[in-house]
């Protein structure tokens, strides 16, 4: 809050904006204002996070701040936006961009050069920075962002995280006073996302104001000092992370996730165990909170509880864990997918996977986790037949993938890709969903009938063009065309990226339903909370190898393994591990918020 009293750098008063291209964005928001009556002041030097469900107007807000509205996107704009004291309508986009640097959502389109150094030079040259200062600026900016070693690299050869840093550096070199970023970590794994935020923290320490749109609540709560929550074009909450996340219920209603530890706090507060509205935001904070609650009563000696009691407790805990118990048909059944000693290398030897062994049974949900470049996508392509193993065998629903064409494997194994737009190709949702069936030779009318049923179940508009729908709905259309096939195996590649919390839950619930009906689900996912909520088993990959596989909880609790794979275990599991270690072994093995809350309450009462 204090920062806001400093000199404002961006000031928006009663800003309302609607895009006037009814043919396009029209379906997304019925009342057509993308931004309605937004007033806010951003003080110099703040680190502001913006969150909200998709279609809430976050990107529009960023465009208004960066001057792209009104100068690039056309529409109807009311209200005033002052950037450094100048109304954005009165000055040119070029002038605004000397104050506000913006990093676009799709960084590939932002790049103007093919080599990092040239990318850095572009802005400096254009804004007429004296040539004798350019060298020092480039070197210094690369240093700040931590990519001095990449200076002469081709941008095309960089990883996603590196590219993101180049994009940030190229803007930063122009010394803007505000940096606006639109979902900079959407395509990144957790480790690279944290690095990007570390970079932003450093940038902020240099005096630059940072405004970042982000879906990852844990990052926002850790790095930002102010969070804006958007919903349906309006600004609904504005405050410090603690203030914002104390409104857990309201956030959930809007469709915004809260950090799991904040949920623990909010649940305890609801049950009257803690008072106040300042939820904990990190695992150590939560650990301290629970220890303080339990410790005064329970002296350590008193709770080296008997083994039998532990056993009884575990039954109670399993019930409250909400983790799908291993499905009965998973035992003793034939595996529907099996990989035996599979190896594959891309031509050019850039990447490879070695000695992969894995079996998946009908009705299971298996998560595949690991850093970018660990070989997860290669594994999925080996499964659906897009790649053939160089050694070993992949059997998919009884078919050896080396012997049948990919398009034939598709009848048994449906893939949901990270970007739904690659999958969509028809004029209406109905055609799109029935398309897969007709490809498998199902009669046109039957196909439409089954498609119609699935569309109804998913609540999608059957006659709309898929491309006119919002990103989340397009993902649902793609999922519907997977579900209609009733495949034996479903492969999900980052099913939740680019979706907001509510959409993410809808997608995952549908996937769980499919698993209930006996379909084997294999999902590659960076969101460890989603993995721990929905997967029974996980496969941990690093450097093209499977490090280990086993029960979700067992894997996530294995700290050395998680470190080796550079995977960050979900907050709740980290918390329960910490509590089990320092407070009471009873906490071991809890993976859900409710489990922690129930046990804490029980211990407090017992004490």
């Amino acid at each position: 809050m204090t920062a806001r009293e400093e000199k404002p750098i961006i000031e928006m008063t009663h800003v309302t904006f609607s895009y006037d291209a009814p043919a396009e964005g029209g379906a997304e928001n019925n009342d057509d204002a993308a931004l309605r009556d937004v007033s806010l002041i951003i003080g110099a030097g703040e680190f502001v996070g913006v969150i909200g469900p998709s279609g809430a107007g976050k990107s529009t807000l960023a465009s208004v701040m960066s001057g792209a509205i009104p100068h690039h996107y056309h529409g109807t704009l009311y209200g005033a936006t002052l950037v450094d004291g100048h109304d954005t309508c009165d000055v040119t986009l070029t002038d605004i961009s000397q104050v506000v640097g913006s990093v676009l959502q799709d960084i590939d389109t932002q790049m103007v050069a093919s080599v990092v150094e040239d990318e850095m030079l572009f802005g400096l040259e254009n804004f007429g920075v004296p040539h004798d200062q350019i060298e020092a600026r480039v070197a210094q900016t690369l240093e700040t962002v931590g990519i001095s070693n990449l200076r002469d690299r081709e941008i095309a050869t960089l990883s996603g995280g590196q590219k993101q840093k180049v994009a940030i550096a190229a803007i930063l070199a122009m010394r803007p006073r505000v940096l606006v970023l639109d979902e900079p970590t959407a395509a990144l794994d957790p480790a690279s996302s944290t690095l990007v935020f570390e970079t932003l923290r450093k940038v902020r320490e240099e005096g630059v104001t940072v405004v970042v749109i982000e879906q990852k609540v844990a990052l926002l709560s850790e790095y930002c000092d102010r969070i804006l929550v958007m919903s349906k074009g309006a600004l609904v909450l504005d405050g410090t992370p603690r203030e914002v996340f104390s409104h857990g219920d309201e956030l959930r209603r809007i469709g915004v996730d809260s950090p799991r530890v904040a949920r623990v706090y909010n649940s305890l507060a609801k049950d009257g165990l803690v008072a106040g509205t300042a939820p904990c935001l990190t695992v150590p904070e939560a650990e301290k909170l629970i220890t303080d609650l339990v410790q005064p009563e329970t002296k350590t000696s008193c709770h080296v509880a008997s083994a039998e009691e532990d056993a009884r407790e575990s039954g109670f805990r399993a019930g409250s864990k909400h983790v799908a118990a291993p499905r009965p048909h998973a035992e003793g059944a034939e595996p529907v997918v099996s990989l035996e000693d599979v190896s594959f290398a891309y031509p050019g030897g850039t990447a490879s996977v070695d000695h992969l062994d894995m079996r998946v049974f009908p009705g299971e949900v298996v998560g595949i986790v690991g850093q970018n470049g660990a070989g997860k996508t290669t594994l999925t392509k080996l499964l659906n037949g897009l790649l053939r193993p160089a050694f070993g065998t992949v059997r998919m629903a009884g078919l050896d993938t080396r012997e049948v064409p990919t398009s034939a494997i598709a009848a048994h194994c449906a893939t949901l890709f990270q970007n739904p737009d690659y999958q969509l190709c028809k004029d209406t949702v109905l055609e799109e969903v029935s398309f897969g069936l007709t490809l498998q030779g199902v009669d046109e009318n039957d196909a439409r009938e089954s498609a119609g049923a699935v569309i109804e179940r998913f609540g999608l508009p059957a006659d709309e063009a898929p491309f006119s729908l919002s990103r989340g709905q397009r993902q649902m259309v793609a999922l519907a065309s997977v579900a209609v096939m009733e495949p034996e195996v479903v492969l999900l590649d980052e099913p939740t990226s680019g979706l907001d919390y509510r959409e993410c839950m809808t997608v995952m619930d549908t996937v769980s339903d499919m698993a209930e009906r006996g379909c084997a689900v294999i999902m590659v996912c960076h969101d460890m909370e989603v993995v721990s909520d929905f997967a029974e088993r996980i496969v941990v990959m690093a450097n093209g190898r499977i490090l280990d596989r086993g029960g979700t909880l067992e894997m996530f609790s294995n700290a050395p393994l998680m470190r080796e794979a550079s995977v960050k275990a979900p907050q709740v599991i980290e918390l329960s591990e910490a509590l089990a270690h320092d407070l009471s072994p009873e906490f071991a093995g809890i993976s859900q918020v409710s489990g922690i809350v129930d046990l804490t309450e029980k211990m407090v009462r017992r004490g």
Partner: protein
Amino acid sequence: MVNVIDYVPGDTLLHRLNPVTKLGIAAAIIIATFLADTYPMLLGLLVLTFALGAYARATSKLVSLLKLLVPLAVVMLLLQTAFVRGGDPVFAWMTTDGLVTGSKACLRLLGVALPLILMLSVTKLNDLANACVEVLHIPYRYAFTFTTALRFVPVFSQEMNAIMEAQTARGVEYDTKNPIRKLQLMLPLCVPLLVSSVGKTDATALAAEQRGFYLRMRESSFKRYPMVGRDMAVLVACVALVVAGVLL
């Protein structure tokens, strides 16, 4: 295929020449190829291209392009033999004249395509754009458009690949052996590709404007691209090459 125009890093004389001079070399070889009418000269020009490629360590680029061009050249040869029917019959419908014209057309096709690719692969696109602006006084706008278009080629082909993979995994038979069927299946995908490319181009325009695109002038470039002695020497050699093309 995707990376035919990627930069091949190196420090040879060819890399160090002014980008405009490199364009000059490519232009000279291409013009000479059009003007030349004898086998020794046509082959000689191809050999020259490959020698330069080998010198700049870009042979693999040329070979991968050659793989694409040879089928095209063969089709051209067959067509030419079908149209040009003078001279003595050799085999089936082919005649001596047909074979001569046809084979020369093939050599020309290769001789025109390869030098340009070679020069692009030893020049960074930004250097090319900046040098054209500085030396040839081309407006930056055009140079930027040109380099951006080239830069987008691999981006779009990756996009196309991703779309085809997604559709194959859905059961569309892109893995069919029949090339005509494959082409038929590919056509409907042009629409989503076009939609996404228009969006990308718009975003690029915005990003460039937000980084002062409209302020850029001829003097803006940080790097300088003077024409020095070796550039002049090479250009003189280029003129000689064109003259040789006229004579032979």
